[in-house]
């Protein structure tokens, strides 16, 4: 019977061999992944989408994208960032297409006046959802269900002025923050952390929607309010039972509606973007098939997004030109 030699002895007798094998394994595995990553970056069937955290966190894309991939073989990689960041990624050409919600900044993104090459072309309005204002049940600002947005903002301002309420603002470059600023502008207020002699009553969290909601919930005096998109709210309303919806869009007003636009990055500006695949992706989103999928997505029994291609014009504060509608019709055929 031969004596079993411990592994340690075997290794120390053949140090060099083991060292070389070890270096080869590490080197080859890195090399393989390096080459794989370089090749897949050139693969036209692999596009990069930058979108907002609120869209991604709602789960909508995980629901839509497998359908698209199954139909076309195109894989969509999603970067979930703020609207501001998504727009910048589109500007510098790190992504192929963006899906965001901030109309004024979207317009700047596709702006081609003065012979400027636009960052993105052929914007399409895809869907909308709505913002709500949530706060603690005791509702120190005394918001009522039928208050329109001007009354809501006025009541909030007066309550903050009196030191009875605290507003938690995102304070970042997100679409939600842009929306909040526009709501304050209806009553000619430019919010500030000092809040006209009531410091700490207007808090810029600088964090994501979920963190901001968490901070609202933790408000020491149970006087917190925040503006939030319905999708994120539905993910958390079971967790934060003391928070309630205190203001929402009333009939006939669309100030709290939140339209989402999809914009392909301009291939004239960044020749490496996979424009042909992006056209099919937007065609999918705007086709009847894609729009029906968006409408059928629910969370806790509630519909999160309302499909809106081609009809944003009239109702939702999100004009779409005839030209845009007819442009995308060509790319929708594939999905009917």
């Amino acid at each position, binding site marked *: 019977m031969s004596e079993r030699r411990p592994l340690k002895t075997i290794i120390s007798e053949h140090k060099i061999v083991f060292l070389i094998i070890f270096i080869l394994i590490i080197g080859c595995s890195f090399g393989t992944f390096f080459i794989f990553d370089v090749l897949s*970056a050139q693969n036209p069937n692999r596009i990069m989408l930058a979108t907002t955290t609120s869209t991604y966190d709602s789960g909508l894309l995980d629901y839509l994208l497998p359908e698209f991939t199954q139909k076309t073989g195109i894989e969509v990689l999603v970067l979930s960032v703020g609207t501001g960041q998504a727009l910048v990624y589109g500007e510098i050409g790190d992504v192929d297409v963006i899906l965001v919600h901030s109309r004024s900044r979207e317009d700047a993104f596709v702006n081609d006046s003065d012979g400027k090459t636009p960052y993105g072309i052929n914007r399409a309005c895809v869907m909308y959802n709505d913002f709500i204002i949530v706060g603690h049940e005791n509702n120190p600002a005394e918001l009522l269900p039928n208050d329109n947005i001007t009354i809501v903002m006025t009541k909030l301002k007066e309550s903050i002025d009196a030191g009875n309420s605290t507003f938690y603002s995102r304070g970042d470059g997100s679409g939600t923050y842009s929306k909040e600023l526009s709501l304050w502008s209806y009553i000619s207020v430019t919010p500030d952390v000092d809040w006209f002699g009531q410091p700490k009553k207007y808090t810029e969290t600088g964090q994501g929607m979920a963190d901001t909601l968490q901070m609202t919930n933790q408000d020491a005096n149970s006087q917190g309010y925040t503006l939030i998109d319905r999708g994120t709210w539905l993910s958390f309303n079971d967790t934060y039972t003391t928070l309630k919806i205190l203001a929402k869009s009333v009939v006939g007003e669309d100030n709290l509606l939140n339209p989402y636009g999809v914009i392909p990055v301009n291939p004239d500006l960044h020749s490496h973007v996979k424009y042909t695949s992006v056209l099919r992706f937007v065609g999918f989103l705007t086709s009847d098939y894609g729009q029906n999928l968006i409408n059928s997505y629910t969370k806790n029994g509630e519909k999160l997004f309302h499909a809106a291609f081609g009809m944003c014009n009239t109702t939702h504060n999100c004009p779409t030109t005839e030209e845009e509608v007819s442009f995308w019709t060509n790319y929708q055929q594939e999905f009917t």
Partner: protein
Amino acid sequence: MSNEIIEGILEAIYLIFTLNPEVWSVIEVSFRVSLISTFLAALVSLPIGSFIGLREFRGKRFLSNLINTFMGFPPVVMGLIVFLLLSAGGIFGSLGLLYSTTAMIIAQFLLAVPIIIGTGKAAIESVDPALKETVLSLGANERQLWWELIKHSKKSIIAGFLVAFGQAISEVGAVMIVGGNIRWATRTFTTSIVLQTRMGEFGMAIALGIILISIAFILNYGLTLLQGGDK
């Protein structure tokens, strides 16, 4: 919230035993990135670190201070630097490596290099000078001396490697910036926990945390056995 923790533990067990593909993808990406980057860093840094530890030369003090500073280099800043280099407008932008595991490996590698150089250097320097003299008096050349010192300080060197690995697998800022937290592609334990928390999926987040800690424990235990330091 204590409910969440119990739910998290149950969910962790469930996810592991049902071989949940998403969890496996996260485990695979985390370990691939952390292991390759730390091993690559070790290959580069150990010779450099032990060389600095062994030799005396002009500017050694300055170099040591520089390395010590870089050992605490903020990972998000490293993430930002690698991002700017690999971004479409950056020097290496044409490779299209941004948002890939390679980008994550590069960032983690750059973070691990100073740690392993620093600990390797300290390990060599902390060897008893008497040993050095004995080895030299026995007629050893510099290469043999180097090898002897490495053997004597291998525990400290492995400890340095573990520190670097621990940093790599628990790091979140840099891999978030250069990897982009893309599902099935660049999502790691840490970035996935950030996402799940944001989505209100606390159970899943805790489950991933538990899996991460357990795997790290098993790995550390294995390496301690390898070190022969079971005391």
